[in-house]
Structures are given as C-alpha cells and as structure tokens.
C-alpha cells in the first residue's frame, strides 16, 4: 500500500491509499480525485492526467520516457516536475508521494 496525496490548485489535499501496480492516474480516478481527466484511460495518448511531482519525489518517480515526454507537448504549463500520472506506477517506495494538480488540464 502506498499513500498518495493529490494537492488541488486551491490547496485542498486528497489522500488516497493505492495498491502497488496501479498507476497514480488510476488511483486518482478510482477515488474520484478532481482534476485528473484521463480521457484516453491511461494509453498515454491525451495528456489530460498531467501532474506536478513535488521536488522530494522527483527522483523516486523517475523521468518520463520518450513517449510521455512527447505527449507532454499536448499539455499546458509544463514545468521540469511535470509528469503524466498514467505513466507513474505505484510501488511501496512511493508511499507518501505528493503530486500537485494543475489549474486546468485543457
């Protein structure tokens, strides 16, 4: 089990317990966390599950692969800590993960 905190643009925090193996996007959608549209359902094809990974968690979550980096071109307000949450797999090591949800996905 890994506890993930989603921080809304207004500062509200949604805390979710996620099973390893699912993605950070799936954990959000399953728990009705606002702001993760995930239109394509996790196919890395729409860039509507964009999140900002808090600094302390950038190393454990890793770097985007080529496909994800390409798809980030279709998201807005991209920063160095931008990720598509459908491409972050939940592991025990990510217990405590904190991600910020952008103002708007599009």
């Amino acid at each position, binding site marked *: 089990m890994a506890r993930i905190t989603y921080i809304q643009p207004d500062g509200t925090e949604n805390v979710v317990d996620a099973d390893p193996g699912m993605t950070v996007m799936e954990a959000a959608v399953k728990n009705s966390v606002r702001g993760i549209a995930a*239109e*394509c359902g996790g*196919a890395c*094809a*729409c*860039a*509507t599950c964009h999140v900002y990974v808090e600094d302390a968690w950038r190393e454990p979550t890793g770097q985007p692969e080529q496909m994800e*980096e*390409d798809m980030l*071109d*279709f*998201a*807005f*307000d*991209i920063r160095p800590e931008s990720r598509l949450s459908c491409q972050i797999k939940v592991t025990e090591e990510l217990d405590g993960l904190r991600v910020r949800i952008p*103002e*708007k996905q*599009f």
Partner: protein
Amino acid sequence: MSAEVIKTDAVIIGAGPVGLFAVFELGLVDVKAHVIDILDRPGGQCAELYPEKPIYDVPALPVVTGQELTDKLMEQIKPFGAEFHFSERVETLERTDEGFHLVTDADTAFECKVVVIAAGGGSFTPKRPPLPGIEAYEGTSVYYSVRKMDVFKDKDVLIVGGGDSALDWTLNLQPVAKSLTLLHRRSEFRAAPASVQKMLDLVENGDAAFKLGQVTELHGDDGQLTGVTVKGPDGATFEQSADVMLPFFGLTMKLGPVADWGLNLEENLIPVDTEKFETSETGIFAIGDINTYPGKLKLILSGFHEAALMAQQVHKIVYPDKKLIFQYTTSSSNLQKKLGVK
C-alpha cells in the same frame, strides 16, 4: 454549397467501433445507412487515441489493437455498402413528417427515417489552451484549424506546438504570412523529421523564426490579438508580437451540437431504454459510450449488443408492414445472401 439532400433509411453519427457495427446489424435487417464522423477516418477513439494499443476484452479476440479492430469491422460491414462522410460534424437535427433532417458543418444534408447516435465521448475538437480571455479572440485572431489560407495573408503569425499540425502549418503558412514564428516548449518535435528539417531550413534562411517557450498571457483588444507573453525555458518571460495565433495541442472530446437536439441528457450522456436503446425522442437511438442506463458499462462489447437490439426496433420503423423473423447468420441463406457469402 449544399448539393441535393441525401435520402437514406438511417444516419449513424460516429464511425467508432459501435457505429461501424451498427452498419452491420442494420444491414442484416435491410436498413441502409450513411455514417458521419468528425475524424478523417473510421475508428473513433480506437483510431485517434490508441491505434497501436492492445485491447483484451473483445470476445474471441484475445488481443487486438484499436486499428486492427477498426480494419476488421470495416471488412465485416463491407457487404452493406454504407456511405461514409468523414471530417464532418452534424450540426442540426430536426424532425420532419417522414423522419429527420440533418445538416453537417460542410452543408451536407440528409433526410432519414431514423438517427443512430454512436458518438462515444463526443466529437473530437481541438484543445483550447487554458489562457485567460482566449475565448474573446477565437475566430478573429486565434484559430485551431486553417479553413482559408487568406486569413493569414500579410499577418504576423504565431504557431504554438511541436506536432505534425504545428509543423505542417508552419510550412504551409510561411509563404503567405508577413512573418511566421513557431513557438514550442522544447527543441524536440513529435513530427515527421522531413517537416522538422524544412522548418529548420526556413529558420536558417531567416524566413521564419523558432522560439522556445510557453504562452502565459494574451494581449489585445476587441478580439484582435497584438501579442503574447511567453515564458522561456529559463523561466524568464518575453513579449512576442502576433496578429494571429494557432495553438496545436491535440484533440479532446466534447459533446458538441448533440446537446442542442432536444434530447434528455444526464451529465452529458443520453439516457436510453434497454430494450430498444431509443432516446427520449422516438426514432433517435443512442448506442455505445454516449448512452446511459442502469448498469451501463462503457465497453465495446456492450455497444455491439446495443447495436443489435437497436436494429430490431429500427426495422419496425423503416418497414412498418414487415414482420421481422429472427435468423442466424450461420444457418439463414437469406442473411448469407446479404453478406455475399452465398
């Protein structure tokens, strides 16, 4: 200009897997169909979002990609000769004495007895960058597609994005524009390498500019853009002047004009009954992801089932005097004849 009105039994809105299979089920009961889709090819989400991604829950196909499924469905429905109208969106739907009158955004008009809405998550429309006040510029100096090149003649054009659309329009508009600037967040592009090279050649020759950054603010008055604020890769901002801006950030799904057709809606879905999959309006059916009913699952296989039951009711409307006898394709020589296998 609109040519003459196309007359047919059924108009299917949406050429995703469920819309395509509706052609099959309607064909078996002798209902002729025209299919309309906003995309330029069949497949809907399967073609646009995951053509190469595997799907594992289509019965009898342990694994199939979105494109393969689309191709197989196109093959399966071929005997029924449905006509396709791609890159068009149905704008208006009105009831007439004989059925319905539909007109698309390309002014194609249809008269039909029934309408089958198989529009999935809605029609694919360009993503609107979440920039404050952008709506005020849309159609006058912010465009998401190019319909007439003349609009960009002698203008300072700003194209934003790094995909094929951004690159293609950079190359196509550069000769007509007064100046052309391509803005992208990084120096890599997910576009055809040949287009990228041509763009770089233009920049090299001073015929176009390429800048790194992301738009954060729009400036202008009364819908007329004068420039934008850009945040560069180092975090510093700069001003970029522009008369027109073309943002290319891919597509998203919007319900679109369906919302204006007088149908009951529940959270952007169309409620239907589970016997006929008919909407609140007699003769208008909704199948696949766009409908809702108790227990609804958004699965391709559910849409296929819905198409089969819908076709039974459509037969009654199109052929009020004929009784439909249920038959299997395996054993019915009548159905096999329609399929062209006998």
